[in-house]
């Protein structure tokens, strides 16, 4: 009888050990699987960031090239044209003289506009003058069109951010202003730069026709593509952007850039 019990215990023990082996195997396998997925996710996120960073670098390089081309070629050519116009004899008939003066004015304005565009495209220039001066210049350009009333307020204790992070923020502000010009039908544009203790907050506000933000979140069309691009770029520099808008109530975009100097692009 006792040998039967011993035998039962042994056989039961064998079954228990085998089951334990399989359970242990499943646990090890699942742990490995979890690690593998985590690693994969990390690699994906690193890849996305690198891709975005490269895209931004290429974009900045392109802007720089265009800016140099405008300044060195088109700008120079227009300056020569202006010089030639200045050398035309004053003793021309009055109607031609008037047209000449008009042309000179238009030319001067075009040269100035081109210079402004070249500056706003040049990343070195933006780094040189700083973020708020660059934004202010953008608002001045808007103001010059005569269609917009602008205001620019800076509050809080100023601190300098990393040049690359400032450049990304500036491009986003530029895109927001560009959207206002293209779609908002606004007459007022206000920008508030608030240097908080923990982050820089930039509010870009207009009194335009606004839009339904839910349409922007749709992935079916390209409505939300611009916002997603802006969001991706902000994520790259550890920042965030929120857009609030309602039809006929204008649009407010809030850019948040944490002060913490996490490794940026």
């Amino acid at each position, binding site marked *: 009888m006792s040998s039967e019990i011993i035998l*039962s215990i042994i*056989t039961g023990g*064998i079954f228990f050990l085998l089951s334990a082996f399989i359970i242990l195997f499943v646990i090890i396998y699942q742990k490995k699987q979890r690690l593998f997925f985590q690693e994969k996710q990390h690699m994906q996120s690193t890849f996305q960031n690198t891709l975005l960073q490269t895209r931004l670098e290429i974009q900045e390089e392109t802007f720089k090239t265009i800016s140099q081309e405008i300044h060195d070629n088109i700008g120079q050519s227009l300056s020569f044209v202006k010089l030639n116009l200045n050398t035309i004899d004053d003793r021309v008939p009055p109607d031609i003289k008037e047209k000449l003066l008009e042309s000179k004015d238009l030319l001067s304005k075009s040269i100035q506009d081109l210079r402004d565009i070249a500056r706003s495209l040049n990343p070195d220039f933006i780094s040189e003058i700083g973020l708020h001066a660059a934004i202010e210049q953008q608002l001045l350009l808007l103001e010059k069109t005569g269609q917009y009333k602008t205001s620019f307020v800076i509050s809080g204790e100023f601190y300098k951010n990393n040049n690359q992070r400032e450049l990304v923020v500036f491009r986003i502000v530029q895109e927001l202003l560009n959207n206002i010009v293209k779609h908002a039908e606004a007459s007022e544009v206000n920008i508030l730069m608030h240097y908080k203790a923990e982050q820089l907050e930039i509010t870009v506000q207009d009194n335009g026709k606004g839009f339904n933000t839910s349409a922007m979140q749709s992935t079916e069309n390209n409505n939300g593509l611009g916002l997603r691009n802006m969001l991706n770029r902000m994520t790259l520099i550890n920042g965030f952007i929120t857009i609030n808008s309602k039809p006929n109530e204008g649009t407010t975009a809030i850019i948040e850039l944490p002060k913490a100097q996490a490794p940026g692009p």
Partner: protein
Amino acid sequence: MKSIIIFLDGLAPLIPIFYILKFKKKGVLKELIFLFVFLVLQFIFNTIANVLSYYPFSNYFVYHIGLPVSFLALLFFLNGSRGIIYYSKIQFIIGLCLFFIFILNSLFFEKIITFNSISYSLCSLYILTVCMKYFWLKANTNGTNEILKEPYFWFISSFFIYYCSSFIAFSSYHYFIKYNDQSAGIVWRFHNVMFLVMCILISKGVKLKHLCQAKSFFL
């Protein structure tokens, strides 16, 4: 209870057989044809052996015929799913060699008047190596799939539990018969319970196989 356990090895294969036939239309039977043959053979030979045990003549010859035939079906099943369970061609050839060894053993060594303990033990060892290789390779590769949702994990686990636990029953059968008939009965009943466990695990695998088929159909 005792008589139920005695008949377990004959009845248990009916569970996975039922599931394979249930999902026949989903292509499961075609995919698992050799496993199905293995289970049917197990059902037939075990039932015959159990019935014969009530008559005054030996049923050992059933085991001598049943082992090589069902082992062959199992070999083809493993070979058919080589890519999924890491079963190599060499393993298959070794398996075929074993098949002939089983026949030779029945003809010249452990003849049909006795239980073919060596053949069963060798069969167990062989299946164990296949299972261990599977577990080893699975544990050392990056798992992209949920292991508990893989049908072959359940199949291999079922073979592993049954053949590993039955190895003692197979290898020590002569010893128990010689010295203690009652112990042999206990070991054999334990073997039958393990056989039921194997069939339940195979059924789980078949059910998952059906789900996999349905998934790939919809994808």
